């Protein structure tokens, strides 16, 4: 299969997990800005998963509107930068969503490849 076909950026499978991915990164890194999140995901997945700006910002804005993320503004190199961090509610929700995601992965693993243990 050509590498492009394996590109995860357009995969429907990943769209539902985008919010959880963002929350997990914020849980690990404290506070992050938009561009940093896209680059971090790219680095962790060695370029396999590429979050587009068109998908990232609606996801961040939705989490912010739901009260799961808080915003902090800082001046960096002659410009303002908007950082996102988890709220208390967001931290609790991250644990729940990660647990849900792990269950999902485990179940998919059992269905797709029952011989392998997760």
């Amino acid at each position: 299969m050509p590498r492009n076909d394996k590109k995860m950026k357009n995969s429907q499978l990943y769209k539902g997990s985008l919010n959880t991915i963002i929350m997990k990164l914020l849980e690990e890194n404290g506070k992050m800005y938009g561009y940093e999140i896209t680059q971090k995901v790219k680095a962790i997945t060695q370029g396999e998963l590429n979050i587009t700006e068109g998908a990232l910002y609606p996801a961040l804005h939705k989490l912010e509107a739901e009260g799961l993320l808080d915003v902090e503004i800082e001046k960096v190199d002659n410009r303002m930068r908007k950082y996102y961090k988890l709220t208390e509610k967001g931290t609790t929700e991250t644990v729940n969503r990660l647990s849900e995601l792990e269950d999902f992965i485990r179940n998919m693993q059992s269905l797709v490849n029952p011989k392998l243990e997760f």
Partner: protein
Amino acid sequence: MKLTAEQIEYVSNYVKSFDIKWYELQVELTDHMITSMEEIWEKEPELTFHQVKQYAENRFGRNGFKEVEKERRIILHKEFNRSQWKMVVEYLKFPKIAMSVLLVVFVYRISFYFEDISIYIKILFGILLGASIIPIFNWFLYRKINGKRFLALETLFSVNIGSIWFSYWGIFLAKNFIENLRKNHLIFLPFCCFWVLGVLLVITGRHLTNKVASNIKKQYQLT
């Protein structure tokens, strides 16, 4: 390679040239563009400033910045609507429901002092229409904070303005049911509930606006 202050200013104006009026989006999109441009330039120093800008912009997709704005508006509208109705529901639960019921009873009882119920309905919904000035007042108050406009507050205004529709519908329904109302006074009770719901929307709208505005001031360090 770091962008100079002039180049940063240029990018900031470029983002604004797409009719991005909202400070929260201007900050976010400008910073994203600049960080992205600096990284591209680091890897490919032979590119010109405008080429780098174009590459960074292309990452936002076909409708670029405006699409991000559109999506944000939809998300905020939905979320504010949900938050406001959640607050209203609180007034329909114990213990706040006691207050709501008392108000319905009070409004209903007053109606007996009026010979013509249609006049009372006009007064009631006129008051509600008058109270709808509150969202308009809020809009003027928070249209700009320190000269900066926020999409969150603009969207909240369009959510709050819903109480005007309540007044309109109240008068419209009363006109259609006036004969039934004159024959059977009990029919007026649902109108009282409808009116109280309108009042709750005005109160919760004001509360939500103050909450969002104070949060924005805190986040963006504005006074």
